[in-house]
């Protein structure tokens, strides 16, 4: 196993030609989201407090409809808060931030663009240098195991490959924050484990701040520095677990004796909440 610190150091020096950006820090205080008005009002989220350090990998785990996705959209400025406020890098958030990459459960690739052109959408819409981005895309495709698939249409790619292209699209512009909403939810278990590892390696290299939403305890423990457990309607953060396992983490997380205690703790919360009803 490679020493994680070493990995970071090496890649940092490798990537010195490319600018290194530190991950954004996220601070949310008393954030509440209410959809609709008066009688129709639906209290979807909060109030929640959230504090994510620069370069931290944080997972949100919780039952369906507990406001995880809303949280993600709020910290990127894509949804407005009903109450409370959000700060990114200690600056109050008022409009959608551009230094962000978003990956959803569905790859949401444009079927009429090839893999590489889907990624280059970032450059085209932002109006940035094409040549520079072509080089970045080449490097990113290589890292994500997409080499040779540049000119394939999404239809011609497997589910895992599509999601990798989607990740490439979220990273090509070198954002400070990566928001992932159940990115591996639609993939099979074997692909999931591999892509989980690949994401971890990429994160170790770039140290972007990641907010990762998942339903999978294994994924949350396998990737995160910290797991936030949420309850539903209205969504609240009810527990916080530091995952101090060494990185990179193996495919079989059961190698760590701590893994079972982490996952037991999450299962226990879900049982207490009534998410699981086992007799």
């Amino acid at each position, binding site marked *: 196993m490679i020493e994680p610190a070493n990995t970071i150091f090496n890649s940092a020096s490798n990537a010195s030609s490319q600018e290194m950006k530190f991950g954004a820090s996220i601070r949310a205080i008393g954030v509440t989201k209410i959809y609709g008005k008066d009688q129709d009002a639906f209290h979807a989220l909060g109030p929640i407090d959230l504090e994510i350090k620069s370069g931290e990998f944080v997972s949100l785990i919780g039952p369906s409809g507990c406001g995880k996705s809303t949280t993600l*959209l709020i910290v*990127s400025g*894509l949804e407005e808060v009903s109450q409370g406020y959000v700060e990114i890098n200690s600056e109050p958030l008022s409009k*959608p*931030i*551009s230094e*962000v*990459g*978003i990956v*959803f459960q*569905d790859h*949401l690739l*444009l*079927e*009429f*663009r*090839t893999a590489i052109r889907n990624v280059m*959408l*970032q450059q*085209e*819409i*932002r109006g940035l240098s094409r040549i520079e981005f072509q080089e970045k895309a080449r490097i990113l495709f290589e890292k994500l195991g997409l080499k040779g698939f540049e000119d394939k*249409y999404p*239809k*011609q790619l497997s589910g895992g490959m599509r999601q990798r292209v989607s990740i490439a*699209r979220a990273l090509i*512009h070198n954002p400070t924050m990566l928001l992932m909403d159940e990115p591996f939810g639609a993939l099979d278990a074997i692909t999931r484990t591999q892509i989980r590892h690949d994401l971890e390696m990429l994160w170790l290299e770039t140290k972007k701040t990641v907010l990762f939403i998942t339903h999978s305890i294994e994924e949350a423990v396998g990737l995160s520095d910290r797991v936030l457990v949420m309850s539903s309607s209205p969504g609240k953060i009810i527990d916080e677990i530091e995952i101090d396992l060494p990185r990179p983490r193996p495919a079989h997380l059961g190698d760590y004796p701590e893994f079972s205690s982490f996952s037991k703790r999450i299962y226990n919360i879900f049982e207490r909440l009534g998410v699981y009803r086992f007799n």
Partner: protein
Amino acid sequence: MNYLRVAFQESRLKVRLRANWISRIIYPAISVMFFLSIWELLVWFFEVPLWLVPKPTDFLNRFFSDFSLIADHGAATSVTIISGFLLGIFVAVPLALLIVSSNSLQRGLYPVIVFLNIMPKTVIGPILIVWFGIGPLAAVIIVFLMCFFPILVDSMTGFRAVDSRLFYITKSMGATTWQNFFFIRLPSSLQHIFGGMRIGIVKAVEGVMIAEFISSNKGLGFMIMRASSFMDMTLLFSGLIAAAIVALLFNSLLLTIEWLMIPWENQ
């Protein structure tokens, strides 16, 4: 080695395509020939007079001997179809976008359009004659009315089918409304729009004939109508063939454009 393999696969593909192409031509051609021969034989055997049912040889001869006349009218019909159809696209697609993006238009305007579509469009012909006189313009407007609706409906379906979460991603890129339209919405809906256009072109070809029957002094419909009033049966049947050719031409033209514009579906 790799090159050889690719070349081999390509040549095999070509053989398959050619075989496919030949079989697609030959079998229908054989059955058409068979049908025409039976026709020829029956008319000849029962000595049916020319003014009642012409033999295929009669009207095929006429088709070639009067080709320039028929081609002129065919060209006029084609121009009418193209004008009406393009007008249909340029009105229906933006209107579809407007209706999809505005709730009040959806509630107010769309039912009116649906009602207007239910109304038989040929009854507008006499009104158009009063307004614009007998001529191609009235026919263009009828063609437009015929093909407009299917294009509108399918474009609306296409514009609605775009996953709205995609716009979260483009919003984070700072995309403008125009960029959202040209980069995302329009190309995503292209397949649906072409679906509407495929129905629209059939309607347009149908509509142009009716329009030329009632309100034109040019075109195949007009020529057929005149041939009918003179009981010129061979010209009438030649006109029928010409109309079929025009219909086939426009359908395949549209399919070719679709094939060229939607390459991701052909891979």
